[in-house]
């Protein structure tokens, strides 16, 4: 993410002294907590007057949900400001890297920077559930059949395949406490990818990436990439191969067979 951002002139600064957004665990058990934790981070980011870029779909969703409630409900805003101990201005945008690269940088600029097109790579694009839903909160236009990632993959030379599981949930939030069900959900996605004639999956969310990399049954697995790994590879950025060794299902045999590494 950092290397790709640098190469695309996206200036990054870590939010000062951030804390976790509370994820499913906060909103499942305590509404006020689930708004106050992202609000603390948003208020910290406001001090730098920079927009917040949130790669994880679930974190992105929690930030957008907090923003949605804080802007719609004055009483709640006052209550949350009391809890956090600081004022929320609401002046900065919450963005996902997919949206920034697709809309601000643009597909043409991305295509120009490709030095090694990913010929032979046939990914299906997977957006996950929480990046796009609900649409009034996440504010993406095409929330049932998104195409931002598909167009990016095409721009870097991959033969992206169409499928109907782009926004089906991978079960991430119950991966540890209800593992058997989540294995079944991941297997279903892997089956769908194979039916679409894909040889790998590319995700818009790092947590979906981890879940799909770890949880499918043996024999069902396909290499799974977070999208900036592939952009970095196509742009020939230094260190672009370093992340592949940390995958649970090793993508290197596929990539070397295609002559990409």
């Amino acid at each position, binding site marked *: 993410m950092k290397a790709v951002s640098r190469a695309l002139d996206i200036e990054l600064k870590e939010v000062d*002294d*951030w*804390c*976790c957004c*509370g*994820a*499913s*665990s*906060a*909103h*499942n*058990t*305590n*509404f*006020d*907590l689930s708004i*106050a*934790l992202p609000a*603390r981070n948003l208020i910290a980011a406001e001090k730098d007057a920079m927009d917040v870029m949130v790669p994880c779909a679930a974190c992105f*969703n929690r930030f957008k949900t907090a923003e949605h409630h804080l802007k719609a409900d004055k009483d709640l805003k006052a209550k949350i400001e*009391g*809890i*956090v*101990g600081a004022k929320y201005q609401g002046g900065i945008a919450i963005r996902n890297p997919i949206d920034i690269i697709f809309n601000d940088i643009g597909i043409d600029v991305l295509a120009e920077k490709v030095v090694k097109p990913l010929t032979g790579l046939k990914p299906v694009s997977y957006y996950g*559930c*929480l990046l796009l*839903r*609900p*649409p009034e909160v996440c504010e993406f236009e095409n*929330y*049932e059949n998104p195409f931002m990632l598909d167009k990016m993959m095409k721009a870097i030379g991959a033969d992206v395949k169409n499928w109907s599981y782009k*926004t*089906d*949930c991978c*079960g*991430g*939030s*119950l991966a*540890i*406490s*209800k*593992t058997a*069900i989540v294995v079944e*959900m991941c297997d279903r996605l892997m089956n769908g990818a194979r039916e679409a004639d894909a040889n790998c999956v590319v995700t818009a969310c790092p947590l979906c990436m*981890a879940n799909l990399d*770890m949880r499918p049954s043996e024999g069902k697995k396909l290499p799974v990439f977070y999208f900036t790994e592939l952009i970095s590879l196509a742009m020939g950025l230094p260190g672009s191969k370093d992340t592949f*060794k*940390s*995958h*649970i299902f090793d993508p290197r045999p596929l990539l070397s067979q295609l002559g990409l590494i």
Partner: protein
Amino acid sequence: METFLEEVNKKINGVPLQRCYHCRKCTAGCPMTKHMEYNPNKIIKMIQNGQRDKVLNSSTIWLCLSCETCITRCPNQVDIASMMDVLRQMAIQQGTVREANVLKFHEAFLAGMKFGGRINEPMMMVQYKLKSGDLFSDALLGLDMFKKGKLALLSPRTKDMKSVRNIFEKTKNR
């Protein structure tokens, strides 16, 4: 006396559940329906019927993944995902949590946050395993993740922990 339906509506604080005309679109799109004892539409019907105990004792509310497909597709903007949050919180308060391990995971996660402001995965997993008694599942996967550098035993914490603990203190369920 307040009915169960009124109580749930008040807590959702949005579109009232009476708006549901039972088209079952929520249920058609829900990825967990086949694992649930009552599907999402049935839960709405049961709330309308005042079946408080059955709803708050059901596994359904803990199997909901909060993927928000239901609210996205509901033609009447009934916020079923928020409804599930509200029902879980009510079940916690009255002490009828059917899927204990799901709650134990959330508790381990939040305990990790209260300790460091950010999640340290190995520590959270140890917490969860001690709470749930499910000691050995994922042990090999954990080892593999560790070898591949995906798990760090030590990770940076939030410095201003006072502000984080303060948020937990002030939002405590009473």
